[in-house]
């Protein structure tokens, strides 16, 4: 095919689809989706880098294609549903119209870039009024109230929203079992019995409590402590075994958070 798209730039799903179709002759219903993925991977390689947004967009479009395709491939009702067929065609036409629109504005944007580039060769005169005329100039603030100014200030000073995906729930775990073991060994008297409740006293973070529990299990595994829970949901009693070799404790497995 002679058609080439000169901008190897991916901005959105339609963009992606446009490029894929125009370059690879991807036939939505006939060609396997894997070829689309392959085409995408080649594009990725050409771009030389990958960003999350682009990948997400690809997944989105791939999902759409997959849905369209499965609908075509799945055996239809015995009774041939002509409405569904028409629906599919409607969908296709709509998609085509949107792709064409997308392509239209892409080309228009290229033209705008040319216009802007030409215009940027000139700088406007902005020197403004000479001092001699300044006293004649009307008060530009006439009709502007302090409240108007405050509103303008609020507009100007409003924090610009910054968009990022909230990843707090996958924030890296900063407490390690090894640290927790060390803390228990160092902080807890090596005699008598202590409850797990006491060991986790003052801890708010659930993950920290979990890690501390893993530390206790680790100490148990190492044969350093004895654990006893008298009743279900009752207090867990942790007691040091007499003569335990605390020097071994540094050898514990490190749990990856």
């Amino acid at each position, binding site marked *: 095919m002679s058609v080439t798209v000169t901008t190897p730039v991916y901005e959105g799903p339609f963009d992606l689809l446009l490029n894929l179709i125009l370059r690879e002759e991807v036939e939505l219903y006939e060609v396997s989706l894997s070829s689309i993925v392959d085409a995408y991977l080649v594009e990725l390689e050409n771009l030389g880098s990958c960003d999350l947004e682009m990948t997400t967009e690809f997944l989105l479009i791939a999902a759409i294609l997959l849905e369209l395709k499965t609908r075509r491939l799945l055996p239809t009702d015995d009774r041939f549903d002509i409405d569904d067929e028409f629906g599919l065609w409607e969908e296709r036409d709509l998609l085509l119209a949107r792709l*064409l629109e997308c392509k239209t504005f892409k080309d228009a944007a290229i033209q705008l870039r040319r216009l802007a580039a030409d215009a940027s060769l000139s700088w406007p005169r902005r020197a403004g009024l000479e001092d001699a005329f300044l006293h004649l100039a009307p008060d530009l603030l006439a009709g502007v109230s302090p409240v108007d100014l405050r509103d303008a200030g609020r507009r100007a000073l409003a924090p610009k929203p910054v968009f990022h995906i909230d990843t707090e729930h996958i924030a890296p775990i900063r407490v390690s079992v090894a640290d927790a073991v060390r803390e228990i060994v160092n902080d807890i008297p090596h005699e008598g019995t202590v409850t797990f409740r006491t060991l986790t006293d003052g801890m708010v973070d659930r993950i920290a409590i979990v890690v501390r529990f893993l530390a206790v299990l680790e100490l148990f595994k190492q044969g350093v402590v004895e654990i006893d829970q008298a009743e279900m949901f009752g207090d867990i009693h942790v007691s040091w075994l007499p003569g335990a070799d605390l020097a071994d404790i540094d050898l514990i497995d490190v749990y990856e958070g």
Partner: protein
Amino acid sequence: MGDETTDEELDIRRAIEAILMVSIDPVAPNLLAQLMEMPTKKVEAICSSLADEYEAEGRGFCLVRIGGGYRFQSSPAQAAWVERFVLEGQHSRLTSAALETLAIVAYKQPISRNQVSAIRGVDVDTVIRTLQQRGYIEVVSTDPGPGNALMFGTTREFLESMGIDKVSDLPSLGDFVPGPEIVEALERGLLADPDVVELEAEGDAGSEGGEVAGGSDAEVPVDDRS
């Protein structure tokens, strides 16, 4: 100056030169006409003769009609010198995402954020805000319909940065409608099973897609979103 110019015309030329020299924004021809108490057409004729004159004399500046009015600006031929002088790049370029969004707003104004988003196929909030901050687009109205969406349009600054006088001076959108070979390629890309070819004929009767693919010059329904 031409020999056939009358004294009155000479006065007007000088007045216009003086006024444009002190104005920060382009001066609308009808404002000049009002000040000079003469028809706008005449003012326009004088301005364009001034512009021709500067060009013929090979001046380092020129007089242009831009953003709805006339202004003095440095001649494009002197860009290299002015750049050296200005130092800080006054003209920062837009990314293609921003530019495509700007093109949609320019051609479809007034248009809401959601409408732009529908055409772009992606979320455009960040880009819209950038364009607004840069002064290329602004809220021009509120959609009277449910939701009262903010409707965006381009600003005079946009026109100035494109070097044009008014929005209608932009190249016609029709010029960018993809040619038959691209439509065909897209259609082929979306082709359905060959065994429903009879349905294709019926289906296409309702739309114009098939016709275009067939190579005719019929308009592609690009513009029918409302």
